């Protein structure tokens, strides 16, 4: 039979061993959970970066479509002399183009592994994920409104450009048209080689679309003439006064704009 000393030592040893094993298990469990949480944090970071990349990519796509709408709309506004038409095309193009890019709505799932410890750290982590998801949700919800306000802004910019540079554009267009009419330009020759079996294309030959833009009713030439008339009326009146003649009455000159495309087609029919 064991002596008291043996039994006492056994009791003490057993207790010490249990305490040590308990501490070791506790610490290793906590460490394991800590590592899992860190790994989950890394995954979360990667997911956030992925979401950011995807959102940027879509924003770029929207931006490209808006730019294209602005170029087309402003171009139409300039060549037709109708800034409102250009603004409308820009606005509609921008809103539709950007709106067709779907919103980013992929939420980050709960990446936190299960565990018994570090509850505050887990709660923080879950809150971070929730906050990111909330951001994604808000961004998706706000995207439509943003697209519309951007479209309005684009339309306004297009209108302003058409209004501000319409006069200069008409002059430049007329000048370039003269050049194109005179010689076969490099562009005409190249396009002719591609599309017309080596015969140069004629952008401004009679009856062409270029000619319609230049000399059609309310086209570039008409607008330039109207502006010249507007400018010279005051001068002529002053000269008449100096010469002692009766000055001509000043007409109310309206700058014309290009007629409808159907008039162009009608023109084609008569030619």
């Amino acid at each position, binding site marked *: *039979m*064991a*002596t*008291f000393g043996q*039994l*006492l030592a*056994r*009791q*003490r040893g*057993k*207790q010490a061993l*249990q*305490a040590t*094993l*308990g*501490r070791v*298990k*506790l610490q290793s469990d*906590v460490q394991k959970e800590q590592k899992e949480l860190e790994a*989950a944090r890394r995954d979360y970071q990667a*997911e956030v970066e*992925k979401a950011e990349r995807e959102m940027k990519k879509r924003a770029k796509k929207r931006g490209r479509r808006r730019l294209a709408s602005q170029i087309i709309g402003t171009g139409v506004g300039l060549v037709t002399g109708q800034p409102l038409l250009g603004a409308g095309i820009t606005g509609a193009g921008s809103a539709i183009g950007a709106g067709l890019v779907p919103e980013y709505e*992929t*939420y*980050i*799932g*709960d*990446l*936190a*592994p*299960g*565990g*018994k*410890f*570090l*509850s*505050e*750290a*887990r*709660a923080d982590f*879950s*809150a971070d994920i*929730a906050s990111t*998801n*909330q951001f994604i*949700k808000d961004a998706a*919800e706000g995207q439509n409104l943003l697209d519309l306000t951007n479209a309005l802004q684009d339309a306004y910019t297009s209108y302003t450009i058409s209004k501000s540079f319409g006069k200069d554009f008409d002059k430049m267009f007329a000048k370039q048209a003269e050049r194109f009419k005179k010689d076969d330009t490099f562009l005409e020759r190249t396009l002719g080689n591609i599309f017309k079996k080596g015969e140069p294309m004629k952008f401004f030959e009679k009856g062409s679309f270029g000619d319609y833009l230049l000399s059609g009713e309310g086209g570039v030439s008409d607008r330039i003439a109207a502006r010249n008339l507007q400018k010279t009326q005051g001068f002529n009146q002053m000269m008449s006064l100096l010469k002692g003649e009766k000055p001509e009455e000043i007409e109310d000159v309206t700058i014309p704009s290009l007629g409808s495309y159907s008039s162009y087609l009608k023109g084609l029919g008569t030619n």
Partner: protein
Amino acid sequence: MANGYSTNFQSLTGLLGSLGYDMSALTSPGSLYGFGQGQLYGTEYDMYFQPFDVGGYQEAQSSLQQLEENLLSNVSQQFTQQTQDLRQRYGGSMEEIRGQEARAGFVRGAGGRQRATAARVGMQEQESLVRQREQGMQSVQETIGTRLGQLEGTLLDFLGSQAQMALNIKSFDPKEPDEAGFIGTQGSGIGTFNYGDFMSALQGANINIDLGGYGG
């Protein structure tokens, strides 16, 4: 052995009661700190609390009781033996005095003085034996008391180590079983995630998020 020197061996229940605990402090020590069935942190942390070895303690206590009985019995037997020896020696001395009286014709006074001397010496030796017995008994009591203190100390060490363990667990921020927002399963990742469940879990955790048009 029913004598004034026997140690009072308290039962575990009595000892725990005097410390303000009950037996559950030994069988389910985590319950003292909120770790246990129906308690704040539940049974998930039971593995970190080991029960006290009640059987081992009781075996050691019985062994100590037995040891005490043996030691006290030894002292008692030794005393009995020495007392008997003394009586024999005293009886022998008296016989010798009486023989001398008969042979030499001692006058009454001389024999009486010799008997008185023998009785005084006998009394002194008897007193010495009683003192030795008491010292022996006290020594046994001291020894057993010390060892019982060591044994009971294991109980106190146990209670202390469990308190330390509870403190360690709490310092690692344990989750409470009904803690909402604490997701216990591996996440399913992007794409197959139930946003509604997730948001309701978060709302339970008092994280204020507007559900808006989402959710289940």
